């Protein structure tokens, strides 16, 4: 397994074309970049980026995903080659969806993964806190999350499960404010998670990072042959990639940690955000590049996967987890186990 690069094109007005075995990025007919196709696993275009049909054909042939996102990183479309999906696996997936025990068990595992990884974020914050008082507050919140985790086996319906998850998320987000460097707090405080649109800078940053992770989770599920829309924890709704949302839960704390790093190292500042009339906040176009580069770098970090007993780059973990999910779907005796860090 090799972590290939994803080419993110954020440059407005860029034009992508095939040039022998490379992808060429042009702006106003001037070549800005050439990338050999065999280095790429995906091409992700933000907003107004054009590309040639011959390039699309070649991407499809090579199994390189082409993903179109809007300016804010929200998913628009995806071009896929012929080798995709597995009808037997999808059939099994839909049968599992009708199996209340499996659905609940898998949903529980997804929530457990998220809560465990969130708790790690708070515990680490508590260890590194500058004041006793903040360390104590973070420890208390981490203990609350531990209680939520212990409550999961008793949650006997999806609604009960979502209730536990919602409460844990509320506690967790209140703790995240304490992990922001004190002199950045005025600019980056959040009052709970807001979206559509985000109402503060922290939330705007999180929304953008979640969109990146979401896209990777969706791609991973499709690569594993699963239907990203047929999820277990998230309610089915047309146009919603519920299974990708399920898979993403365990990765959200990774996005949160990266957001904190970007803020605490002052890689992002107030001028990197636009506050619109009425209070909606968006990430400024130039800042998107900073975030995408940091995200790509973070994906190269080697982490150890406890179940596979191997180290691998973080960027491959969604694929590994999607395959474990496929296995759980196919094999009635193999439970889904989320990726939990120590």
């Amino acid at each position, binding site marked *: 397994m090799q972590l290939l690069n994803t080419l993110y094109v954020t440059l407005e007005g860029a034009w992508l074309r095939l040039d022998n075995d490379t992808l060429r990025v042009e702006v106003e007919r001037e070549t800005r970049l050439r990338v050999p196709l065999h280095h790429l696993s995906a091409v992700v275009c933000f907003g107004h980026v054009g590309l040639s049909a011959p390039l699309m054909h070649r991407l499809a042939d090579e199994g390189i995903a082409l993903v179109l996102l809007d300016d804010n990183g929200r998913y628009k479309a995806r071009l896929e080659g012929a080798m995709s999906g597995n009808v*037997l696996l999808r059939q099994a997936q839909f049968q599992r969806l009708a199996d209340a025990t499996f659905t609940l068990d898998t949903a529980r*595992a997804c929530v457990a993964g998220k809560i465990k990884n969130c*708790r790690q974020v708070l515990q680490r914050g508590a260890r590194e806190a500058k004041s006793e008082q903040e360390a104590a507050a973070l420890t208390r919140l981490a203990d609350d*999350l531990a209680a939520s985790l*212990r409550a999961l086996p008793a949650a006997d319906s999806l609604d009960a499960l979502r209730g536990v998850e919602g409460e844990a998320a509320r506690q967790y987000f209140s703790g995240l404010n304490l992990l922001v460097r004190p002199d950045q707090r005025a600019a980056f405080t959040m009052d709970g998670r807001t979206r559509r649109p985000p109402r503060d800078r922290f939330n705007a940053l999180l929304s953008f990072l979640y969109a990146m992770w979401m896209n990777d989770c969706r791609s991973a599920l499709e690569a594993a042959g699963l239907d990203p829309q047929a999820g277990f924890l998230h309610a089915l709704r047309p146009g919603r990639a519920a299974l990708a949302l399920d898979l993403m839960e365990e990765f959200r704390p990774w996005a949160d940690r990266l957001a904190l790093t970007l803020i605490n190292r002052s890689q992002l500042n107030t001028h990197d955000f636009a506050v619109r009339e009425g209070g909606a906040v968006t990430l400024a176009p130039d800042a998107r590049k900073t975030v995408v580069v940091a995200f790509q770098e973070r994906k190269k970090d080697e982490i150890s996967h406890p*179940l596979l007993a191997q180290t691998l780059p973080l960027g491959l973990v969604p694929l*590994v987890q999607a395959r474990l999910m496929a296995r759980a779907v196919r094999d009635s005796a193999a439970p889904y*186990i989320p990726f939990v860090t120590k």
Partner: protein
Amino acid sequence: MVDAPDPVPLSALQHWCYCPRQCGLIHLEQAFDDNLHTLRGQAVHARTDQPGVETARGVRVERALPLWHDALGLVGKSDVVEFMPGGAPYPVEYKHGSRHKAPDIAACDDLQLAAQALCLEHMTGQPVPEGALYYASSRRRRVVAIGAELRAQVVATAQAIRQMLASGELPPPLAGEQAARRCKGCSLIDRCQPLATRAGLDAARQTLFDPDA
């Protein structure tokens, strides 16, 4: 009308013999990943995969010859079949690597060759008592007698594969000494996840809701 079951590809017999799960991933899930070994294999086949006929010293050489056996439900392609002056077919299967493979892995190649021999007998009505494996690194042939035991193994393996395909169930990964030797050479190891064992998953499930585990 009921569809006749799809014939089993000859290569599936070799895959099944190497590892039933590998066979399932390739032929049931239609999954394939390349690694160094598979790419070397492709390079070896670059020539034999081009259909064609040559004649040298009275021996007619057919490359990429379509093969089938209706009764056994087998279908595939031979790398090379040499037709002797009397018309007797002699299959030659090309493999990368050396002819000094471990005996149990070489046996998988023998099985595939034997299946080709059975197909040729079915197609031509001529007996095929012998064939050969050509190993590209050694540049040597290894002659294989198509005996009764090998023939019986072809029939049994084809049946086992058909059963697996009909059930739609992926066989479990190899375990123990076999896994130690075979998995590291397999290009599908990342899909197969042999180290994420059932026992490992169950153990992880036990501690999933324990914050201190």
